């Protein structure tokens, strides 16, 4: 399926429709909780579906996938942090906060990729779904460590510690423990892993009764979800000017770097087929806009939310949905042929 083919998938077209509606300043408004409801449905549906498939999977392979998901989750924020500091457009704390987003993943992008593969008739392994669940959290931890390390460097260079110093001292370990807790009990992680477990342990006869809900209306719900995400992405483009062209291009380059890491892991390390490799590339390429932003707001209040939200939601998400997914599929096909 070509790039143009991708653009004619209804889900992607609905994304474009939402984007357009905001661009022309339409008064189209979605109820504030609709996106949240739709994404709860999508997580549960994909979790049940994948969990059912995983019930028949190899344990060793699953374990290996989890391991490499963690490796990706730890490695990508470090790469992102280094790149961001190299641009000299953001201070270390903002760099840490942004990098954490790129080490984590976007379930919306992943689900769109699944729709793309289904449409193109490409088979894929079910292991990348566990990787999706696993990869939400490690990047948060790396981001926090990077932030804390940056803060200490700032303190060292600016000896008039003041308030920031107080945070480090009185916060410290207790704060880290809390943030680790938050990372692992994150709502979408629990929903996804919980649904996977339920899908894996439930009796097939019981699962059958769930399939009309899980399968048949899935595409329609995804369309509505992407309609709204298109509107939200477009809402951010006013901020592009504040952010500057260098950061904007980071929002396009970093997904490519992440996708390459993903392809290497998917194809060479885990030995997935083209479909599975594409999905791992999408995991590498996508940036979180659900789990990571609140964590950064709470733990790195010095960072400017406009930066990480605009990059993740306004640039990387549309890029991946429209250009990235077919591109990663194309690259995965190339690598597989090589």
């Amino acid at each position, binding site marked *: 399926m070509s790039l143009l083919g991708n653009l004619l998938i209804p889900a992607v077209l609905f994304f474009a429709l939402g984007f357009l509606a905001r661009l022309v300043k339409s008064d189209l408004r*979605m109820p*504030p909780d609709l*996106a*949240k409801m739709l994404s709860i449905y999508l997580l549960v549906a994909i979790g049940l579906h994948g969990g059912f498939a995983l019930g028949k999977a190899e344990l060793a392979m699953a374990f290996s996938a989890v391991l490499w998901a963690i490796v990706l989750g730890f490695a990508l924020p470090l790469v992102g942090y280094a790149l961001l500091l190299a641009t000299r457009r953001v201070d270390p704390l903002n760099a840490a906060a942004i990098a954490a987003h790129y080490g984590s993943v976007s379930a919306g992008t992943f689900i769109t990729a699944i729709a793309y593969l289904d449409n193109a008739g490409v088979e894929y392994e079910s292991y990348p779904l566990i990787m999706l669940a696993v990869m939400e959290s490690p990047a948060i931890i790396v981001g926090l460590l990077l932030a804390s390390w940056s803060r200490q460097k700032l303190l060292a260079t600016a000896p008039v510690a003041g*308030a*920031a110093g*107080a*945070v480090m001292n009185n916060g410290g370990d207790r704060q880290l423990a809390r943030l680790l807790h938050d990372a692992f009990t994150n709502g979408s992680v629990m929903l996804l892993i919980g649904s996977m477990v339920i899908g894996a342990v439930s009796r097939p006869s019981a699962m059958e009764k769930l399939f009309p809900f899980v399968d048949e209306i899935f595409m329609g719900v995804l369309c509505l979800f992407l309609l*709204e995400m298109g*509107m*939200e992405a477009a*809402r951010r483009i006013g*901020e592009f000017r504040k952010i500057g062209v260098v950061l904007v291009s980071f929002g396009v380059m970093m997904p490519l770097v992440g996708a390459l890491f993903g392809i290497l892991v998917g194809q060479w390390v885990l030995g997935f087929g083209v479909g599975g490799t594409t999905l791992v590339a999408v995991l590498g390429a996508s940036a979180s*806009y*659900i789990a990571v*932003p*609140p964590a950064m*707001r*709470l733990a790195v*209040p*010095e960072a*400017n*939310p*406009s930066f990480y*939200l605009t990059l993740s939601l306004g640039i990387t998400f549309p890029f991946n949905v429209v250009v990235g997914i077919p591109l990663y599929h194309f690259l995965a096909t190339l690598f597989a042929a090589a």
Partner: protein
Amino acid sequence: MHELVPEKLVTIIANDVFEDKLVAIVRRQKASGYTIVRARGAGSSGEQSGMLDIDTNIKFHVIIPVQGLSGLLDELRGLKRRGYNMTVFVSDVSVLVS
């Protein structure tokens, strides 16, 4: 006659991830309760459209006796100093007690 007791109403407008932090402060300050309303808006940290979890505000209200105001504001000022964006203001209210 009505028993109208003069107290202070402290209103905090902030992103809703701070809710737990604010509830903890209010409990520490031994306020008798709090009230939360969902909000959206715009300020120095950009627009909060209220459409996604990540850009929803809350309006957080606490009524406290006049003598409790100072302790509460100390904690809130601490948060603001550490970089937490929030709009905080105090008004005079007369609370019906009977």
